[in-house]
């Protein structure tokens, strides 16, 4: 019940493409769904987050789509750039617990 399933494990796109990363959760007690971006040798950094009462949130080129009934959410990166190459983790947070997905390694080629 505490798992957050994330796919795909890795993703390769050309510059300008729109990579999509999907996540699913089980525990309906989660009430905050952040995405973290991690570069090699660095800790995860909060990228964007959404609450379950909202179906979509955009911040710059990053968009979260949230489907509460399906318990699924996804990250879309518009006009992807080589600098977006990193590992992305979805997460689910609730009652002082933060559970991470398994991560997606994104490579954006010029």
């Amino acid at each position, binding site marked *: 019940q505490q798992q957050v399933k*994330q796919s795909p494990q890795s993703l390769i796109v050309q510059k300008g493409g729109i990579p999509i990363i999907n996540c699913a959760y089980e525990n309906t007690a989660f009430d*905050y769904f*952040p995405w*973290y971006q991690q570069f090699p*040798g*660095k*800790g*995860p*950094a*909060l990228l964007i*987050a959404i609450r379950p009462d909202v179906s979509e949130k955009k911040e710059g080129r990053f968009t979260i789509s949230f489907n509460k009934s399906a318990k699924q959410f996804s990250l879309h990166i518009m006009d992807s750039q080589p600098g977006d190459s990193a590992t992305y*983790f979805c997460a689910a*947070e609730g009652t*002082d*617990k*933060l559970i*991470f*997905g*398994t*991560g997606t390694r994104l490579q954006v080629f010029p």
Partner: protein
Amino acid sequence: EAGVAQSPRYKIIEKRQSVAFWCNPISGHATLYWYQQILGQGPKLLIQFQNNGVVDDSQLPKDRFSAERLKGVDSTLKIQPAKLEDSAVYLCASSLHYGYTFGSGTRLTVV
């Protein structure tokens, strides 16, 4: 605001030796976390402090791992004795409400 500070950045030890990591959270953040991140995996919570009290240590291997946050600010995580499978990045994070801020981590290699 200053970020979460961790030291050392890297540590290489032999199995059965001991090692300690240090974390200084963002000023004013009452909640502090230690995570273990094995290569290719997501971070896994080891222990969570609220001020200087332990909130959750259910995933901490208590036979070899210990952690403290004596004055509700800095924290140390210790491993004694270390095993090969402890090789990982140890991340410290702090939070005020929602959204965690992570440090850059300590990369531990046990040989």
